[in-house]
């Protein structure tokens, strides 16, 4: 599953650790998601979308 988490994070001028702390996961989790090596659970995907004030489909693309 492709995602635009890294782009969103840079757009908001945030560090990986800041995003991780905001959504309650480890920094390694954010790194793995950004690299496309880890697909988050639905609850975390929603928290990330909520944190960036966007829709879940704006962050994650299930077609990829």
């Amino acid at each position: 599953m492709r995602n635009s988490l890294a782009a969103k994070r840079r757009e908001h001028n945030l560090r990986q650790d800041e995003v991780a702390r905001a959504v309650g996961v480890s920094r390694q989790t954010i790194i793995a998601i950004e690299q496309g090596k880890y697909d988050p659970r639905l609850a975390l995907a929603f928290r990330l979308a909520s944190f960036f004030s966007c829709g879940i489909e704006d962050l994650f693309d299930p077609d990829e």
Partner: protein
Amino acid sequence: MKPWILFFAVGFGTLAVIIAVGQALSIPPLIINVLIGAVIIGGGLGSKWLSDRQRRAARADSEDSLEHQISVKAAAQTFQIAILAIAGLGAIALFDGSPLTTGFAFAFLLIAIAAHWLIYARLRRRALSTDGTHEVP
């Protein structure tokens, strides 16, 4: 990394002191063994405490974290290895002519497999249970 270096240094240092004092003062081996056992058990509990503390600090214990998912997978794979190890122990004991050890090994094997399926059934039942509000007409 530093807390672990300190932890192991204190642990091995304590063991060395116990052994050295025991030899110097001719303390009975039973007391030395009990003290060494206490340090090893304390070390095991301490390492778990330290590990949990570090995981909490890094939010690695969160259910959504990569580390948690990996930990669950690792535990599942370790269970399979443990099952094989117990079966192997039972087989060795069988050929070694130790009926009590063989019995214990196969009893543990049965308990572990039964526990797996009981937990599986409980989790499946919980996942599929409904309060009637989500029934498909």
